């Protein structure tokens, strides 16, 4: 079990309110991702749930029990930190054993759980090494192992992959996702990387300045962003925003269209422009198009290899039905 409910939770640092009253429910077994730009309060929110920060007001409930005043160790949560926070003078085995040692689990049981965790995380050969002798990915796996052996009600991940290189990040992302489907334990994952959020989450919570901008499944956020912020944050490359006359045609202040919803055509497109930068990835080609009269730059995704380069004229056709309309306050128009 691991249903986490936040009721009107606020957090002040001195006079500044970093989290205005906030309500959120994370269901048992759910993989929830807090995503937002740096400084949006997502890590603070996670630390409030962990108990590493005190709430200024409001209640935190885990499985219906009010834990707002309960000490971090009694909440039954395990946390994985961005810097791994391994104990440097202990071997991997001792690191993983530490929470069990603190809880007074007997030696035989400890050994059993360490072996199981090490096997699941491919750490069996490294159990007697110290963290300093491990690579970044291995260290992160040790940190996860230390969390798993506690059999927590929920896992908290605080930007766990930020310190890893790109290739390793993709691998670890899959490992964590697989771990979630195997353990079926509630997980809360904080990241600023919307790709991580989209690929891993059951539920994404988009935060800005401590406010929840939108909560929903990845595809829900992709299809129906509630405002300009979510529309711009979710999806890669970023959604194009067009204001003025073109938006007026759709009875909106701003319209948004994703790069993948604009087709490149040979001629007679609805829009024309000059190619600025062309990014040829093989599978896709991204064009940064200028001089369209719509916006300073339009980003366009063309599938496959398209042989247009810098300075070439490009003809574009937006697809109908996937244009997002927003009013002058940036809210979605239905």
């Amino acid at each position, binding site marked *: 079990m691991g249903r986490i409910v936040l009721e009107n939770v606020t957090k002040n640092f001195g006079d500044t309110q970093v989290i205005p009253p906030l309500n959120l429910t994370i269901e048992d077994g759910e993989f929830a991702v807090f995503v937002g730009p740096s400084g949006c309060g997502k890590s603070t929110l996670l630390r409030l749930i*962990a*108990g*590493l920060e005190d709430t200024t007001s409001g209640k935190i409930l885990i499985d219906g029990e009010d834990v707002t005043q309960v000490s*971090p*160790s009694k909440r039954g*949560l*395990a*946390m994985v*930190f*961005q*810097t791994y*926070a*391994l*104990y*440097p*003078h*202990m071997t991997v085995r001792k690191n993983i054993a*530490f*929470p069990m040692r*603190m*809880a007074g689990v007997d030696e035989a049981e400890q050994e059993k759980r360490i072996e199981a965790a090490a096997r699941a995380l491919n750490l069996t050969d490294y159990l007697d090494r*110290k963290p300093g002798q491990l690579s970044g990915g291995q260290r992160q796996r040790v*940190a996860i192992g*230390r969390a798993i052996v*506690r059999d927590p009600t929920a896992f908290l991940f605080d930007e766990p992959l930020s310190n890893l290189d790109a290739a390793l990040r993709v691998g670890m992302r899959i490992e964590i996702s697989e771990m979630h489907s195997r353990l079926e334990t509630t997980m809360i994952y904080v990241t600023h990387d919307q790709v991580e959020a989209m690929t891993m989450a059951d539920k994404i919570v988009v935060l800005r300045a401590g406010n929840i901008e939108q909560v929903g499944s990845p595809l829900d956020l992709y299809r129906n962003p509630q405002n300009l912020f979510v529309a711009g944050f979710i999806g890669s490359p970023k959604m194009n925003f067009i204001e003025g006359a073109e938006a007026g045609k759709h009875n909106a202040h701003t319209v948004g269209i994703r790069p993948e919803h604009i087709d490149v055509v040979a001629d007679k497109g609805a829009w024309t422009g000059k190619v600025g930068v062309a990014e040829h990835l093989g599978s896709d080609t991204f064009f940064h198009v200028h001089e369209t009269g719509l916006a300073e730059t339009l980003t366009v995704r063309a599938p496959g290899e398209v042989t247009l380069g810098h300075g070439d004229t490009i003809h574009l056709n937006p697809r109908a039905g996937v244009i997002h309309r927003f009013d002058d306050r940036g809210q979605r128009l239905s």
Partner: protein
Amino acid sequence: MSNRTVSRVLQAPAVILLLIWMIVPLSMTLFFSFIRYVLSSLNRPEWTTPSISNWRGFGNYEFVLNSKDFVFAIQNSLLIVGSILFLTVTFGVLIAVLINKAFPGRGIVRVLLISPFFVMPAVNAVLWINMILDPVLGLQGLAVDGLNGLIAGMKDLPVIGWFFSQWPTLEPISFRATQTSAYAVIVMVTWQWTPFAVLIFMTSLQSEDQQQKEAAILDGAGAWSQFRFLTLPHLGRPIAIVVMIQAIFHLSLYAEIEIVSRGNGNKNLPYLIGEFANNNIGAASATGIFAVILANIIAIFLLRMVGKTLMD
């Protein structure tokens, strides 16, 4: 010339200078320790000039080994150094942990804590033995007097008076006495050198990883476990360094011993050398060689210890 030769040639002046720096005094000490050499002698004026013709072999060493203070001086050296190390490291760690938390006036507290380290050893000894530890005029005497007065006053109280009337009158301790002068030295040097330990541990504590502590909190570690399993291992290296530096310094304590009791009941090897050197340079040199051997034995232990913590 190959790279290695160049670097050796370039290093040579420094290395040669250091070698001379070390070898000249050491070989002179060795030479003096094997001859009869005194500063003044009416009967044997030829012994007052160092000369190979006054060769005594291991005679000086025998003389030193058989002198009544030698074994005592070695034991006392170890007692003083060991006690000071234990006390400064213990107090150093406790104080450093205590002032590591932010509180108002922390900057002033830190400066005040460091200040004993800037007092000269002789001044430190005079202050302690006369103003604090003196059984009559020092704080100790006043405190004992005050306590005795307090207890005497309590004896007249109804109901509980009989309890205090059972108490003996407290006697102040004379720290210049044969049995206690070593403790006076230990106390005053500990007071002076604890700030050094605090300073080193404090800087080390600042670099302690806060996320590790938070991880430990979530892992269920209480304050003691965090100290035992995170802070103490983190301080391993600075502790080794403090122990090594202090051991080197305190093996050669002199001023405090001289001022507290003029070596009465409290000698270490340097003090014994000083006593011999009043006249008998040969015996003083032989003691010096023993001191070098002792220092080397201790240094080997310490280097092993430090090396081990540095390896981790």
